[in-house]
């Protein structure tokens, strides 16, 4: 049995890394979620906000 099928039988418990709104949306549905306060390693790209601008067509 694929792990995916096990997932389908479990309660979804989410770890969110990145846009906080995704975590908030999950939380608003009473699903356990942890938001990771992620920081890039030293020298990393600090323009996290530009991530939003690079969302591809969906």
């Amino acid at each position, binding site marked *: *049995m*694929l*792990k*995916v*099928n096990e*997932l*389908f039988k*479990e*309660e*979804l*418990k*989410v*770890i*969110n*890394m*990145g*846009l906080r*709104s*995704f*975590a908030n*949306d*999950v*939380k*608003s*549905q*009473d*699903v*356990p*979620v*942890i*938001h*990771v*306060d*992620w*920081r*890039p390693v030293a020298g*990393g*790209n600090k*323009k*996290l906000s*530009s*991530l*939003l*601008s*690079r*969302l*591809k*067509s*969906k």
Partner: protein
Amino acid sequence: MVSKWLIKENSYYDSVTLMIITKEIEARDDVENAVVVMGTDLNKDLLNNVGLLNDEINKTTANDLIIAVRMKDESKFDEILAKVDELLNKKKSDAGEDYTPPTLDSAIKYMPDSNMVVISLPGAYAAAEAKKALENDKHVMLFSDNVTIEQEKELKELAVSKGLLMMGPDCGTAMINQVPLCFCNKVNKGNIGIVGASGTGTQEIMVQVHRMGGGCSQVIGTGGRDLKKEIGGLMMTLGIQALANDDNTDVIVLVSKPPAIEIAEKVLKTLKECGKKAVVDFIGGDDELIRKYGFIAASSLEDAAYKAVALAKGEEPKDAPIFTESEDKIDKLAAKEREKLASNQKYLRGLYSGGTLCDETLKLFTKEFGGIYSNIPLTPEYKLEDNKKSYKHTALDLGDDEFTVGRPHPMIDSYMRQQMIVKEAEDSEMAVLIMDVVLGYGSNEDPAGSLADHIKLAKKKFADRGQYLCVVAYVCGTKADPQNYDEQVKKLEDAGAVLMPSNAQAIRFAMKVVRGVIKC
């Protein structure tokens, strides 16, 4: 400054909750300092040192909780009390949200039974974190793009070897165990499972299934590149197998842009092996191949949903009606719009937030009219020279790179679309303006409201010129979505838009209006 306090006798609250309360109170501008401690002798000593001790607090024991605050305006203390009560009565998962661990590892240690990691970090880091998640036996939804195809291959191969989901990169829509993730609508539970390589395509099918009285068991996203040769449909294959094993899924729907033949064959073969009924929408791709394998081909996203719902009920899948309303009624409505147009108004202009919805429009339009310009054209000769300057019939995907540099995606923020509406309204040769309004989690909380004024403005510009602008809109959403669906529809109708119940019907209606004007 006044001192206010609250004592909770014989009260035991876990330390995380107490810390959160302290932080919440101290975050207020009108609070100088706050102390949240058990009434031990030492803590009372400390309170004394900072001038917060009084007789009542002095009487507390080590088993009592003290919340002491020094604040500017004591009339606001009730607000603090209300907040404290709220926090003390919260469930742990709420308190957990305020604890934001700094790394994936610490998050996993804090919630070891987590099973899904959703990643929307910048591409450069996203792949590494996705890999870590998979190595820790977690399923992954990778929203980020800017991940190389080599990285995608490595991630998906790792995932498949472990039987884990690796949804993405560039995967914006999924629903697992009835929980919408990222950009996704809330739909009824049911026996239709979807595996999609295209975000709004998946959303449209889900939404239509719901509208038609069906429901979804699981919705698995694969990311936009899954069916490319280099990836070979790894996630679509896994998704099909998972749905095959899922007792709650009776019908499988696949949606993607047309894949290369060998990948299409591979996917259809896997579908055949799973033995369940299926509908496949390769959006404008090879229907013959689909039928060859014994599956149902769909001519539109709506049609895919329509056929899936029929199969799910054990009925014969028929083609979706061209229009939900009688064609007679639609013709009358189209005629009504058309007769108000001025003689020089000829063109259709589309402003889309959903890339696949735009793509479906381009395909349906091209079938009838032969050609339409776009920033994501079907063939190179219809590529616009300047994406911000529409030419003849044009439909734009405003979620594409050029329009989203330095700006949020149009599903989140309507600014770019508002500007484009105003711009298009300058063109007196435009006859019909068509747009999608996508609801669901992740989307703007009031997309219709954010567009209504600009629609009215555009209509007014045309009226002032002695012309008429026909506006067609489609709300891709359900009544279960966080936005109020009925209100969204009403706002658009009040602005003068004609609403259609699916993306396909919207463009068909728009074509009826335009066709009456142009001989094709």
